[in-house]
């Protein structure tokens, strides 16, 4: 195939062990662009709406994308997709490293797992050899340890993705780990993998990929390489990664502290990017085809504990497991990062769950008796370690937290729902939205629950006025179309999005690889189609109007920021409702947050309208019709 595809898709029935090798459906890629687009389409079509996300009818899809491995910088991503057990809606998560390209070099664009294996297995792929092998010796191993063992057993040139004990025990925010520090963390993809008794995927490949126009691609890539090597912002990325952002986030009152109680952390100097480089850094680390090497391979050294090595903490983990937990030592933050990685839990949701539990302990809602005689105090790395072991192995009330903060709050009650910082069941990223209304709207409306990667608006909020909600909706909609394209094409947003490479240039690369001849407008429309399909899927599975699920926890409007530069700031429920109303209007949805037939037909997915109508949740026709343009590119006026 001279279009960037490897040519084969594997369909694996884990119940029977049957492995089918099928030609990759090029038309499907053309329509859905791969990555997150294809996983969204397949799970919509094939997973029954009442299927248990941890049951045999859920699919677990590994998609290597259309652009990854194809002679471009940072074409490194691999996308995982399934119905999320955390949100009960369409879920996806991606990671960098080397697995995606390795899969394509072995000859496979996608692996679709179905069923449940009767015993633990791992998938072994060595070019044309594809086998399910006994994972008995590896089951129970922690993620990083398991990856190391598989490499010892099979060779350093195998790319490995593993789950840890958390996924084996059905912790709903479990992650998939690769390359000793890259994770597909969000939406509980690890839990789905674990529910299928799939311990790991080991891949080696050395075949070639063909692209449509190699000469043009080479010329363009050469230009991009030369430009980005000289780009002034490359060196900061190389030196500090995203951890540099911690100080800025604190100074501008968006960092979460003490479970999002406040947005300014007095001890930020002890856990920022400077401290990470000074105290923990071993070396810089890069993904396939990338010299940004934003990854930081570090050590955590704590007296009385063994020295551990990890990749991170990057910004999200640094904030959510740092200021959000009251930590005062970067080594402690790094150690918690390592605990989460090795147990196999998303460090973002993990930080949110620990913080929630800490606040519950502070308020006396859970006690030392509940915690096996231990405390769970702010800033205590020992307490966190003990608590995480309870959660990962579902000991005692650790079981309450296994489903994330939403489910834990439902069990604990006593008003704790107010400070379970999640939307749709997924914990928030490392930004507080009370003084960044566009960011709050981004969390509220993300298709996979609270997540910043779909839309990040903090600088927009600063430019437009942090106390105003005006105009945020259209910008959020636009960002929700353009940012997920990176996950659809399986390329890294940090490289391709932060170094002055234009969307037109990215699409040019896509066209050199595929020969599709698409425009940026075409790509945005595809992204909008994916977004709406996911919205319909979520509504169908959860059988309620979409608006029901789009609210943040009550802390977002009941608690003004108590300290720091943002003291006294916060939004009202009326403002939150206003943002939602404007968002739905900008999207062409009705006031209940449901897509309309007119919109779905316009996007070419009218079949989704039939399903919504059958369930009684089809959006009512909008007076005057749907907007002709959904989402507007942001032009900064005040900077």
């Amino acid at each position, binding site marked *: 195939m001279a279009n960037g595809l490897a040519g084969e898709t594997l369909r694996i029935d884990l119940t029977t062990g049957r492995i089918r090798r099928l030609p990759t459906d090029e038309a499907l890629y053309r329509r859905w662009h791969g990555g997150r687009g294809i996983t969204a389409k397949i799970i919509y079509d094939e997973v029954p709406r009442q299927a248990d996300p941890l049951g045999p009818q859920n699919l677990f899809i590994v998609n290597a994308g259309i652009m990854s491995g194809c002679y471009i910088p940072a074409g490194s991503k691999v996308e995982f997709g399934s119905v999320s057990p955390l949100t009960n809606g369409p879920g996806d998560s991606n990671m*960098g490293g080397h697995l995606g390209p390795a899969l394509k070099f072995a000859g496979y664009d996608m692996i679709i797992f179905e069923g449940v294996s009767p015993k633990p297995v791992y998938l072994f792929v060595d070019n044309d050899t594809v086998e399910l092998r006994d994972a008995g010796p590896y089951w129970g191993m922690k993620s990083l340890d398991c990856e190391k063992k598989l490499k010892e057993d099979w060779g350093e040139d195998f790319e490995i993705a593993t789950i840890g004990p958390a996924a084996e025990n059905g912790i709903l925010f479990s992650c998939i780990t690769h390359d000793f520090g890259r994770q597909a963390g969000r939406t509980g993809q690890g839990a789905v993998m674990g529910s299928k008794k799939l311990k790991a995927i080991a891949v080696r490949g050395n075949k070639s990929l063909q692209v449509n126009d190699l000469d043009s691609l080479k010329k363009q890539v050469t230009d991009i390489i030369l430009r980005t090597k000289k780009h*002034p*912002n490359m060196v900061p990325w190389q*030196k500090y990664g995203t951890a540099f952002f911690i100080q*800025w986030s604190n100074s501008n009152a968006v960092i979460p502290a003490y479970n999002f109680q406040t947005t300014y952390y007095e001890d930020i100097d002890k856990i920022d990017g400077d401290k990470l480089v000074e105290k923990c850094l071993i070396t810089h680390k890069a993904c396939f085809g990338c010299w940004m090497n934003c990854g930081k391979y570090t050590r955590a050294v704590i007296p009385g504990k063994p020295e551990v090595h990890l990749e991170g903490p990057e910004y999200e983990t640094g904030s959510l497991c740092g200021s959000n937990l009251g930590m005062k030592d970067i080594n402690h933050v790094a150690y918690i990062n390592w605990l989460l990685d090795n147990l196999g839990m998303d460090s973002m949701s993990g930080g949110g769950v620990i913080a929630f539990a800490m606040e519950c302990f502070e308020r006396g809602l859970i006690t030392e008796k509940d915690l096996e005689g231990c405390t769970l105090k702010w800033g205590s790395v020992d307490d966190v370690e003990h608590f995480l072991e309870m959660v990962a192995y579902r000991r005692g009330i650790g079981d309450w937290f296994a489903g994330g903060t939403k489910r834990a709050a439902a069990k604990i009650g006593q008003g704790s729902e107010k400070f379970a910082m999640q939307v749709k069941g997924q914990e928030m990223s490392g*930004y507080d939205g009370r003084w960044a209304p566009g960011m709050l709207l981004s969390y509220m409306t993300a298709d996979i629950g609270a997540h*910043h*990667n779909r839309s990040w608006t903090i600088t927009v909020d600063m430019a437009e006025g942090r106390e105003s909600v005006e105009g945020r909706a259209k910008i959020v909609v636009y960002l929700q179309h353009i940012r997920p394209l990176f996950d659809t094409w399986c390329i890294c*947003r940090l490289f391709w999005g932060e170094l002055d490479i234009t969307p037109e240039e990215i699409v040019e690369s896509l066209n050199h690889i595929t020969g599709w001849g698409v425009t940026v407008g075409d790509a945005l429309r595809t992204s909008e189609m994916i977004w709406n399909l996911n919205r319909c899927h979520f509504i169908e599975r959860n059988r309620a109007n979409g608006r029901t699920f789009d609210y943040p926890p009550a802390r977002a409007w009941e608690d003004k920021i108590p300290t720091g530069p943002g003291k006294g700031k916060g939004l009202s429920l009326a403002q939150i409702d206003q943002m939602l109303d404007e968002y739905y209007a900008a999207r062409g949805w009705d006031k209940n947050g449901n897509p309309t037939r007119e919109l779905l037909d316009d996007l070419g997915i009218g079949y989704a309208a039939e399903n919504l109508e059958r369930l009684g949740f089809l959006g009512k026709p909008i007076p005057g019709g749907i907007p002709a343009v959904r989402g507007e590119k942001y032009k900064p006026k005040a900077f």
Partner: protein
Amino acid sequence: MVIYLKSGGELRTKLQPDVDYYTRRVETEAGLSLKDILAGIGINPAFVAFALKDGELKRLDYVPSEGDVITLQPPVSGG
């Protein structure tokens, strides 16, 4: 006193480079912090996460010296 500021992205647009594609020459008073210098040329300091000089991280309270070449890093979201 003359210093040189450089950056990419939207920050570059606001910087209005005049030396090369990324770099602007700024005449300023000695003794001012980077934050004050940015405000003086119409750039909201909140849109600079930190600065880099000779490969070393500098915060916005850094006071530049004659001839400093300073890279401005805009804030971005993580992955």
